[in-house]
Structure formats: C-alpha cells, structure tokens
C-alpha cells in the first residue's frame, strides 16, 4: 500500500494519518462541508470533499468513500471507528473496488455485529456468556412471550438491541411491570439508531466491571491477545475513563480471560484488530459481552503499556504481513496507563454538548502524557458529529504515578471558547472511590444522580478575588476605549482589543 484513504474525521483520522506517516505511506483525508478547515484535512497529504454536513450525506456514504479513493489514487482504506467501521457492506464495497480494507473480513463484521450470533460463537468456543436469549426477538414477537422468557431468566433484566452499540436501544428492567415500557423504548431507539427493532434479553450482572481484551489476528492463523483494559467508568453506557491493566485483575485471571478471548477470535477466523468485551462480577466470574470488530477509541492505553503501535499493525496485517509481536510483550504490561475522553460538553450542565469555536487551546504535555486530538486553536467543533475532541492519556510506572500525571495534565489543559468535560475529570481523579478503584459500570451514573447537578468546580476565595480583579481591569479597558483615549502602549492597545473580542 502506497496511499491510504482515511474514511473518518476528528481525532481518529489524525491518529491514522500519523501511523501512515510513520510508515512512509501517503494519507488521504475526506471531509464534509463544515470540516474543510479541520485538523485531519490540514495534516493529510491529499484531501477529498465528500459531501454535506449530515453524516448521511458524507461520512456514512459508501459510494462517495469508494469514489474518493478512486479519484485520489488510494489503494487502501482505513475506516477508523464509528461511521462505516463496522459496516460489512463497506468492507465488501472496498474489496469489490480493488481496495485493501484495513480491518476484519466482511463476514467477520457481519457475524460478530449480530449480538446474538456473537453470543452463539462465544458459547461454541466454550466461553461463559451472560444468561439470556439465544435468538433475536424481532418486532413480531409479542410482549407476553418476552415476559415468559424474562421470568425464566430472572429479574433484573437488560433489554438490548441486536444491532446495538454505544448504549442505544438498551434498557434496564427491574420489575415485570416495567417490561412492556422497556421493550417499547428499546425497540424504538434501536429502530431509530440502527433501522432494526430486534432485541434480546440478558440477565443483569450485579455491579459488574467492564474488562476487555484487545486482539490482533493475521492472515496466517496467529491471534495475539493483549493485556486487559478496564472501562468501568461509564456515563449512560458510554465509556468515559479507561485504564490498563485493570486494578482488580491478577495474572492468573488475565491469562484466562485473554485465552478465552483468543479462542473466540480463532473460532471465527478473525483477522486484524478487534476487542472482546467481558463483564466481571464481584465473585470473580466473567462473561462474554460482545465483540467490537474495529479499532477501539481507547486503543492508546494499550499502546502505552506494550509499546505496540496497533494502527501500524492493522496496516501491516492488511498487507499480508505475519504478526511478529511476542506473546509476552502483548500480555505483560509495562507500567500503567489511563485515558480520559475529553468531550465538548458542559459537565456542569448535565453534560450538555457544547459545540462551537475554539478560541484558544493549551494542550498538556511532559513526562508520560499523550494527547490524541482532532482539535486545534481557531478550529470548530461542529454540531453534526460526536463531540469527542481529544483523548488524554497518562502513563506511569504504576497506577499512582499515572493518576498523578493525569491530574497534572488536566490542570494544564485549557480550552477557551467551548465547554469541555475537563472539570469533571479533575473532580473524578480526586475521588477516593476512583483512587482506590472501587467502581463498577453503574458507579458513575449513581454518583451523578446523588450529586443532582452540583457543579464539579467551585472557585476558592483566592480565585474569586482574581476573577473580580480581572473583570474590573477588563471593564476599565472597555470604558477607556469607548472614551477614545490614545493607547498608552502597544500592549494596552492589544489588551483592549482582546478584551473587546472576549
């Protein structure tokens, strides 16, 4: 491969472009109308306009992606995550057009993309699954039948979309009386999000932790499982903080989960990068949850503790190379890594999206810090897409040092113009429950409910004084400007301009 089209935007497009650069491969960006000035476009070697702002007019258009590859002379396509990454028709269309799709086969995407088929595959590989329904419950299955199944499984029950992902089409039902409402809500969300109202039921595991295994598989039969990631800090089923290794997984458990994950991948002939997710209950039992047939958002933390560049390996595997990563390198972590997903969201207003113009940006750096970002000063966070602007990763020789570096980096991180979830992370990293790793997948939602909107940041008296002084100086500048005083110095003129603009 000489030239790869990156069929995505934002931070992940930037990440893939960087991997291409590292390998001496040219990268082609694609962009919608509003992304013309985006960072991934500016960093790429070539860039092709693919349509309007709505994802359905651009980043979700298979025909336009393939056409952009043809027009730009690309010979490979990397899908990133989200958008078309887990769409088997896209993988098929790329292969059909003579392009190398950098990901698993269309068959593997289709098989593992169906939650019920994936459960079946896990069971056949001898891996425990959460007790639940084996077949999809289509729109024609009456509620009474589903109620019968639910009674047999026992409450509480999770209703999930067969085509699901990202927490959409997912409902927790604790009582039989809530079941019809839960079914209706899950079906309607699943239909809206995936065009498929089919659901399935799973018994709800009490206070589980989310543990997942990153895998790479080549085209010569080698599958390498990596050290686990823990992603239990979630808000509304969306991961917010990830870390590796898990503070509660010992070497014995790690080897067992990793070997089960590899068994599932081998049984379906899986190639390229993928992740198998498990729930770990409070008695040390784990259950297969689902497989993600793509590069994960949180892949950098695995890279930090293993030294393996997962995106480069995706490209090498796609061009037929053999996996030469040592099994020990993949499974034995060196140090500890934590990732915070920095979103353009106002954490103090119920995590309301806060798109807009970034007036100024100070990105943290220094020992142990990596910031994978799609944003830059002067850029815009459009309203049309996922509001993730960056993934802040901290590495340390142990968890305590990684946390200390993350706190330092969060303090350095400054985004002016839009609100971000940084204040929430500053708060979270100070919580004793987080420091002592006492959490589970519902932990954060419970804590946020208890806090009932109490702000994450409150200024101390010293900072309130500084705010008052700053506001007063700004007022003086605005007034003296309106009185047309000649500027006393260039500095003052500039300060006044800035004040008026701010």
């Amino acid at each position, binding site marked *: 491969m000489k030239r790869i089209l990156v069929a995505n935007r934002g931070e992940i497009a930037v990440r893939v472009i960087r991997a291409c650069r590292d390998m001496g491969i040219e990268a082609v960006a694609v962009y919608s109308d509003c992304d013309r000035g985006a960072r991934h476009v500016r960093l790429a070697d070539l860039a092709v306009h693919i349509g309007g702002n709505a994802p359905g007019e651009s980043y979700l258009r298979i025909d336009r992606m393939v056409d952009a590859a043809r027009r730009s002379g690309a010979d490979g396509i990397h899908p990133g995550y989200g958008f078309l990454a887990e769409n088997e028709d896209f993988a098929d269309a790329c292969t059909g057009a003579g392009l190398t799709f950098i990901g698993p086969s269309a068959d593997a995407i289709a098989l593992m993309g169906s939650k019920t088929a994936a459960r079946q595959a896990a069971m056949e590989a001898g891996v425990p699954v959460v007790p639940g329904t084996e077949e999809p419950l289509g729109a024609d299955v009456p509620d009474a039948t589903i109620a019968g199944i639910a009674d047999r499984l026992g409450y509480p029950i999770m209703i999930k979309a067969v085509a699901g992902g990202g927490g959409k089409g997912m409902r927790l039902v604790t009582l039989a009386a809530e079941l019809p409402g839960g079914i209706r809500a899950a079906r309607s969300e699943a239909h809206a999000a995936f065009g498929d109202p089919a659901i399935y039921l799973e018994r709800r595991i009490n206070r589980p932790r989310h543990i997942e295994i990153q895998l790479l598989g080549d085209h010569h039969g080698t599958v390498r499982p990596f050290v686990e990631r823990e992603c239990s800090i979630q808000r509304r089923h969306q991961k917010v903080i990830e870390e590796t290794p898990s503070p509660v997984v010992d070497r014995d458990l790690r080897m067992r989960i990793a070997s089960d994950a590899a068994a599932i991948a081998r049984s379906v002939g899986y190639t390229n990068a993928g992740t198998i997710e498990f729930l770990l209950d409070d008695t040390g039992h784990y259950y297969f949850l689902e497989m993600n047939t793509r590069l994960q958002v949180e892949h950098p933390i695995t890279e930090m503790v293993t030294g393996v560049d997962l995106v480069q390996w995706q490209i090498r595997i796609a061009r037929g190379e053999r996996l030469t990563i040592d099994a020990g390198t993949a499974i034995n972590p060196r140090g500890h890594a934590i990732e915070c997903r920095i979103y353009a969201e106002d954490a103090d207003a119920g995590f309301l999206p806060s798109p807009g113009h970034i007036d*100024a940006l100070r990105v943290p750096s220094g020992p142990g810090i990596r910031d994978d970002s799609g944003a830059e000063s002067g850029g815009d966070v459009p309203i049309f897409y996922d509001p993730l602007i960056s993934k802040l990763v901290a590495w340390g020789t142990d968890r305590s040092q990684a946390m200390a570096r993350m706190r330092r980096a969060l303090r350095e991180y400054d985004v*002016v113009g839009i609100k971000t979830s940084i204040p929430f992370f500053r708060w979270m990293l100070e919580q004793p429950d987080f420091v002592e790793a006492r959490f589970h997948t519902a932990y954060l939602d419970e804590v946020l409910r208890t806090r009932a909107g109490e702000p994450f940041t409150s200024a101390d008296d010293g*900072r309130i004084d500084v*705010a*008052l002084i700053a506001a*007063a100086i700004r007022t003086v500048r605005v007034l003296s400007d309106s009185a047309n005083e000649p500027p006393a110095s260039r*500095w003052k003129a500039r300060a006044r301009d800035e004040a008026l603009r*701010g």
Partner: protein
Amino acid sequence: MKLHVTAAGRTRALDITPTGDGFLVSLDGRQHEVNVKVIDGVWSMLVGTPPRSYEVAFSQAAEGALTVHVDGVPVEVSINRMRRAGAAVASDAADGGPQRVAAPMPGKIVKLLVKPGDKVQARQGVVVVEAMKMENELRARAAGTVSEVRVTEGASVEAGAILVILE
C-alpha cells in the same frame, strides 16, 4: 476608578489604579499588585506579592453578566460602575429580572418538563432538547416560577431560541 463587583452572592467595593506596568487594585481595602499579559486571547495574570500566576479567560454569560475562567474554573461576575452623571454602566447585574432558558444549539424539543405557573428549584430540568444525537436536559439556573413556555414538543429550534421564561 471605583466599582462594585459581585461574585458568589457577595457585592464588594473595588478600586483600580493603573501603574507603570500594571494595576494597583484595592479589594475590600486589601491591596493587590496586578500585572497582565494577553497571549492569544488568554490573560496571564500575576497577582499579589510574591506574584501568583493565574490563567484567565472571559466568556459572556447570560443576561449580560460575565463569566471569568480562572485556571479553568468559571466564576460568574457582575460589575456596577459607581454611577456618575452621564456615565454608562458597564454591565448589568445578573440577579433580578426574568431568567430565559435558551437552546444552546439547534435541535428538537423532545419533552417539556414544566408548564406556566410551575415553581422550579435551581438546577431543576425544564425542557429536554435532542441535539448531536443525544437528549439533553436544560435546567433552571436559579429557582423561580415559569411565566412562559414558548415552544411545543416536537418543534425544531435554532441556537439561541428562547424556550422557557422564569420569573
């Protein structure tokens, strides 16, 4: 120049005098030497003796008040210039007057949680707007009574559209 400044519910007297390379600010009678350098829209402020370093940025809060971000921590500030004949007031106080809940971005009204006459607490949700594929609850900034609901469920709204007014 003498000002009245309000933050965190307290109004205080502030006197500000330009000096050679900065300002001398008296806040409640306490003196602070202040040096400001503006870099790319962000103020680097050195305050007091020995000088402590702060990063400060501004954004316009609702109702004409100013939000000052000190090291990323937002502080809502309102300023009243002590009135002289003919002098303009720099900015109105945020307290008092109706509270307008506006759409922060274009979206669709999914659910109205209040109706005219309802009493709401501070931070209580008043309307649910769908945008960026997520449902978002907009909340009251302070306690009040709903005087007007300007939208209906299912309506599409532009950024900045006033949705609910509280007295």
